[in-house]
């Protein structure tokens, strides 16, 4: 009868004591399992949503920080910070970047050419009546990032060739809607009548005077919105659909052109406009005289870059952020697709933080309570332990027997707790989420923004996060729980072991 059999006999014959220890560990195990389950579920939902949000990062102005400093130092507005091209390129060399682009853009009003206008519903007006515009996006990544990222797909023709990107060629990609409105096909010539109207400085209204520059482009390709985007729209609520229509209008009126081409064309157009309407563009010198708008003024203020980095994996985001942040000038920061999660998922994140805290507290309580209960039981069994020692049993084996008994009971209790704790966590977190969501009434639902970068990013709401939250039994949850549970029992066994090692058989037996 080795110490294993003795442990078995002790557990099965001393049913009352075994049951008490089982009950204690089961109760504490449920708290631990519940906290682990909630912690795991919050991590899962974060991983899931962040993966859904993609691995996209951009470099943006930190307006909050800038405005705060500018309130104290107004000269900051005069030296408005700009993102240097070298910084963008340096960040693009980061090994976590799969591919990237940095775009510039311009908005050209048009009068002859037709732009896309969504079907207007009763009482809903998109944009200013009568105004038509095209959003011109100057890109440097020839395969077109928006196509690579599935935002749009090529319906006709082709994307750009490298030679076109470098040679300031007047080539473009337009949407199927714009093509349809103007009866255009791939290979056709399209003339954009970029127009700027005069502005009455007294009334603040537009005048009939206008400056128009006809800019011819060869339409090399026609794109359409991706099927996935369309499908996503069908699942939206009415309110969300309306918001999405605005985003769609922006997208479908986007004309993709090589960045250098845009620079040339827009500069010529702006300088032409400035010549026609100098009052709209000129600056005022210190002595009050007007200063004409020059090419240098255009270069200094009209061209800004919006970089967009597609990273290899969503897990690379934080590393990319920490590696690129030191390269950035003051008032610029890395904005990533996953940031949206942090802004909408506060109730879930808080629950995760609370779960982690509970794990620490429950583990500490478990260590203390199990250690005390086991020591109390050992004091009851002092004679038994003395008998083993007087028979010449090694202290290691006596300790082994006690550990085995503890672990056998702990294993049963924890196996039960894996399931009951999970159910408990499910019910508890459901209530907690509901309460937290109601409290977080400001629970900003969809954040609609349109920029060259945020368009790649999926929009998530707290509802999406809550829907994705699910307490389930996964191998990882079981593994972590057993690891914490068994680790806790191991630590709890230190005190009983010390007790056993200090036993003196003579004092017990004689």
């Amino acid at each position, binding site marked *: 009868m080795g110490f294993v059999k003795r442990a078995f006999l002790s557990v099965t*014959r001393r049913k009352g004591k075994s049951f008490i220890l089982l009950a204690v560990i089961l109760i504490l195990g449920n708290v631990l399992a519940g906290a682990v389950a909630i912690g795991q579920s919050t991590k899962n939902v974060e991983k899931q949503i962040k993966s859904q949000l993609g691995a996209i990062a951009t470099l943006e102005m930190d307006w909050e920080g800038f405005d705060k400093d500018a309130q104290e130092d107004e000269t900051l507005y005069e030296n408005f910070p700009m993102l240097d091209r070298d910084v963008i390129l340096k960040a693009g060399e980061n090994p976590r970047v799969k591919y990237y682009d940095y775009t510039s853009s311009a908005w050209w009003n048009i009068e002859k050419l037709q732009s896309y206008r969504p079907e207007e519903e009763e009482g809903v007006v998109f944009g200013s009546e009568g105004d038509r515009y095209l959003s011109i996006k100057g890109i440097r990544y020839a395969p077109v990032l928006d196509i690579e990222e599935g935002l749009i797909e090529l319906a006709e023709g082709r994307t750009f060739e490298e030679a076109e990107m470098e040679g300031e060629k007047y080539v473009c990609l337009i949407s199927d809607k714009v093509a349809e409105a103007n009866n255009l096909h791939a290979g056709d010539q399209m003339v954009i009548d970029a127009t700027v109207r005069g502005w009455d400085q007294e009334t603040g209204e537009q005048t009939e005077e206008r400056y128009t520059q006809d800019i011819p482009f060869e339409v090399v390709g026609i794109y359409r919105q991706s099927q996935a985007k369309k499908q996503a729209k069908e699942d939206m609520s009415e309110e969300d659909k309306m918001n999405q229509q605005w985003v769609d209008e922006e997208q479908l009126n986007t004309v993709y052109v090589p960045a250098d081409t845009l620079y040339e064309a827009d500069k010529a157009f702006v300088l032409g406009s400035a010549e026609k309407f100098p009052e709209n563009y000129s600056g005022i010198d210190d002595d009050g005289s007007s200063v004409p708008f020059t090419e240098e003024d255009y270069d200094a203020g009209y061209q800004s870059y919006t970089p967009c980095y597609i990273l290899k994996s969503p897990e690379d985001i934080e590393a990319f952020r920490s590696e690129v942040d030191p390269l950035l000038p003051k008032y610029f920061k890395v904005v990533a697709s996953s940031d949206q999660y942090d802004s909408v998922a506060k109730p879930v994140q808080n629950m995760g933080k609370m779960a982690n805290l509970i794990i620490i507290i429950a583990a500490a309580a478990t260590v203390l309570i199990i250690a005390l209960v086991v020591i109390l039981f050992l004091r009851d069994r002092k004679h038994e332990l003395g008998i083993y020692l007087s*028979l*010449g049993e090694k202290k290691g084996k006596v300790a082994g027997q006690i550990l085995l008994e503890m672990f056998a009971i702990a294993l049963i209790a924890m196996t039960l707790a894996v399931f009951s704790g999970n159910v408990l966590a499910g019910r508890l977190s459901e209530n907690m989420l509901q309460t937290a969501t109601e409290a977080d009434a400001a629970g900003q639902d969809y954040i609609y923004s349109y920029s060259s970068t945020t368009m790649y990013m999926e929009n998530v709401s707290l509802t999406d996060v809550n829907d994705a939250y699910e307490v389930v039994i996964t191998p990882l949850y079981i593994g972590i729980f057993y690891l914490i549970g068994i680790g806790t029992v191991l630590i709890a066994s230190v005190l009983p072991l010390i007790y056993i090692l200090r036993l003196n058989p003579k004092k017990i037996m004689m």
Partner: protein
Amino acid sequence: MTILETRNVSYYYQDGDQRRYILRDTSVSFEQGKFHVILGQSGSGKTTFLSLISALDKTAEGEILYKGKSIQEIGEESYRRNDVGIVFQSYNLIPYMTALENVMVAMSITDNKLPEDAKEVAYNLLDYIGIVKSKADRRVNKLSGGEQQRVAIARALATNVDIILADEPTGNLDEEMEGEIVEIFKDLAHNHGKCVIVVTHSGEIADVADQVYYLRKGKLTSYE
């Protein structure tokens, strides 16, 4: 033949700067096949002496030799496991185990080579001691005091040791039961070649012993 020997063994408690001797310079030898009794009044140090020769405690001075080898050299744990069986006054059995299991616990701990059919050996041993099979399968807390002490003796014998040490083995038993237990010890010494050492204050047991020692003022004196 001498099997166990104490050489100038002393044991004391440190009481401040003073040493309070329980045993002083004790040299005595115990022989195989003999029933030894150590007599002494309460507090005379009988139990301390037994704890030293059973290696439950260590001598302050001097040494104890088993078959000519120091038990410190053998290792106290190993000595208890393989060379000596102890019977306590209060039986000290494991209450949630049966009589048989209590015996088998000792058999599983020893390094001595035992017959393969340990269970059968344990049953036979219990039977020899007066515990029939039906009682052997009962939990020990369901047995009488005398029966429990028999189980304790069986456990001491189960590891096939040469020395049986007993501390007031009949202290909790009536006279009739005391006689039966003493007969077992005599049989073990005379017919099975064991060296039996019983510590007691009972004169009746001393009357039937082969060798009696008296412990007084820390000194062990032999009575022929």
